């Protein structure tokens, strides 16, 4: 337990619309250890997005416990969650979600500014991570001047900037041409090798095959949890 980054136990999420109750997650439990590279798979409607939101501190479970890097998350307030998201989680979204018409550098600096890191250090760290993802020549480019793959790499640099406990990627290659998707997967592999914990939500088996462990969700239930590769 000591080295687990994520520990969820009996997590359920029930949406209530009027009289109708929909169970999106039904008592899901698992642990993810530091340095793991995990893919969470499932068809659409399986509840994997809901799980991703809960893991990312964007939403709260209806019941169950969630310990992220030693902290109980399930009962935190909005601003406490914002702090957790800022310091513990590096988000990588399918649609990149960069600030439009803003430079790569500023985008990468944004979470660090919210984390009250001095501006000079923000700049240094942003440059370092942009270099890590191979965008040292695109530092001052505006996001709309970059290709999809490049935008996603800016997003990865942004996710790394606060040195989070885990990277949480939601269909990271969903909007990207396959050649560039491979680049993204290479970066993920390299980051994992350097010790970063990666949790990736996807419905594509060949993307999931890059991970070392695959958790499969269906109809809100965990149906399989397999180690697929040894490091």
């Amino acid at each position, binding site marked *: 337990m000591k080295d687990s980054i994520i520990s969820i136990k009996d997590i359920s999420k029930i949406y209530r619309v009027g009289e109708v109750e929909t169970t999106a997650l039904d008592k899901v439990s698992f642990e993810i250890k530091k340095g793991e590279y995990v893919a969470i798979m499932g068809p659409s409607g399986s509840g994997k997005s809901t799980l991703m939101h809960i893991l990312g501190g*964007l939403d709260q479970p209806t019941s169950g416990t969630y310990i992220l890097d030693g902290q109980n998350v399930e009962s935190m307030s909005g*601003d406490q969650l914002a702090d957790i998201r800022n310091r513990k989680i590096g988000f990588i979204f399918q649609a990149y979600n960069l600030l439009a018409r803003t430079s790569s550098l500023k985008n990468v600096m944004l979470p660090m500014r919210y984390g*009250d890191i001095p501006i000079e250090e923000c700049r240094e760290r942003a440059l370092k991570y942009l270099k890590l993802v191979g965008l040292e020549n695109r530092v001052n480019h505006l996001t709309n001047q970059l290709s999809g793959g490049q935008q996603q790499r800016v997003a990865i640099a942004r996710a790394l900037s*606060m040195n989070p406990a885990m990277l949480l990627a939601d269909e990271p290659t969903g909007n990207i041409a396959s050649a560039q998707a491979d680049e993204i997967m290479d970066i993920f592999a390299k980051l994992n090798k350097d010790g970063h914990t990666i949790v990736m939500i996807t419905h594509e088996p060949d993307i999931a095959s890059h991970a070392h462990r695959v958790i499969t969700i269906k109809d809100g239930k965990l149906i399989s949890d397999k180690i697929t590769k040894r490091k």
Partner: protein
Amino acid sequence: MDHRELIGESIGTLLLNKMRTGLAMLGIVIGIGSVIALLSIGEASQKSITAQIQSLGANILTVSPGAERNGLVRGVSGGGTTLTYDDAMALSSDKTLTAIKTVLPIYNSRSQIVYSASNTNTQVYGITPEYLSARNIKVATGANFNQSDLNSITNVAIIGPTVLTSLWGDSAQDSDALGQNIRIGALNFTVIGVTETKGGGGGNNQDDLVYIPLSTAQKKLFGVKYLSSIIVETTGQDVMTQAMNQIGYTLLDRHHIKDVAKADFSIRNQQDMLNAVSSVTGTLTSLLSGVAAISLLVGGIGIMNIMLVTVTERTREIGLRKALGAKNRLIIIQFLMEAVMLTFIGGIIGILVGVIIAYIYAKSTSGLFIVSISAVFLAFFVSTIIGIVFGWYPAQKASRLQPIEALRYE
């Protein structure tokens, strides 16, 4: 994040959509601009009217013939014939009237003034020698007449600088007129002095006057026995009421009138005239400011509208910012800052526009140009407050968005 960074960011965001930013600001610019223009023009016109009234001299009471009908409607000044030179003499010679310093009987009327081929039509004032010094009118060139001129009813005249240029041309020197003969009405007069330029516009131009001895005006020129008015200078501003009483009772007694309500003259105070003018300009200014305030309100609603649109448009951005760790307070500050920047910059432009309008107005009416400093401060304050008030609801709305809902928003 510090405030300087937020200000920079919000200005950057506003610049991304210049057209919309400009239109949103327009309401504030018009509102603030009209407040500044109106208050500045109001203050300037009040100052110039006050200066005009005060230039007539301090501690002055004006006794006019004709009854004070009911405080609002009064017989036309100079319309009555009830005041005489003897009334004025009675006021000045009675040593028991302690509040009275100088008594200036006047008969004035319009007349045609002719010098060789030039002529002009202006006010001719029949006065006593004390008049000019008591009213702060200086003879720039030449001399005032004296009591013996009055006694012997001589035909001498002191002219104002406007009369000089009317008769002798625009480049005339005072010395051109001295000793020359001009014709007033049917009589010839010798010019013995030219007064200093005093200014004053409209129907109250104190430079466009001719002064002659009162006796000459009454007996020779116009053939009347009465006065247009008696101006009384009191010994101080603290004795104005006392002076009004002393004048009133002396004249009532001389005119054998027992009932004050039936008095055949009226006494007016400079302060009364000032108060009347101030109250009129004050009412006008506050009325117009009210209209301007309504336009500011409309401008503020425009700001709120545009901020609500902005919040909706940027739902995904707000979701992202929250996902990356922005706390609610920071989202509120960000959107409030944008609204305040809109109104604050709008306010600055409005102040400039208002000042320019006030300047153009002053130039075109050759009046005073005053920038109402209190109005400028008020405008800064009000425009900022409008930003906070009308930006508050949209900012709250932005901060309450749930990050997942916002991220999903298309």
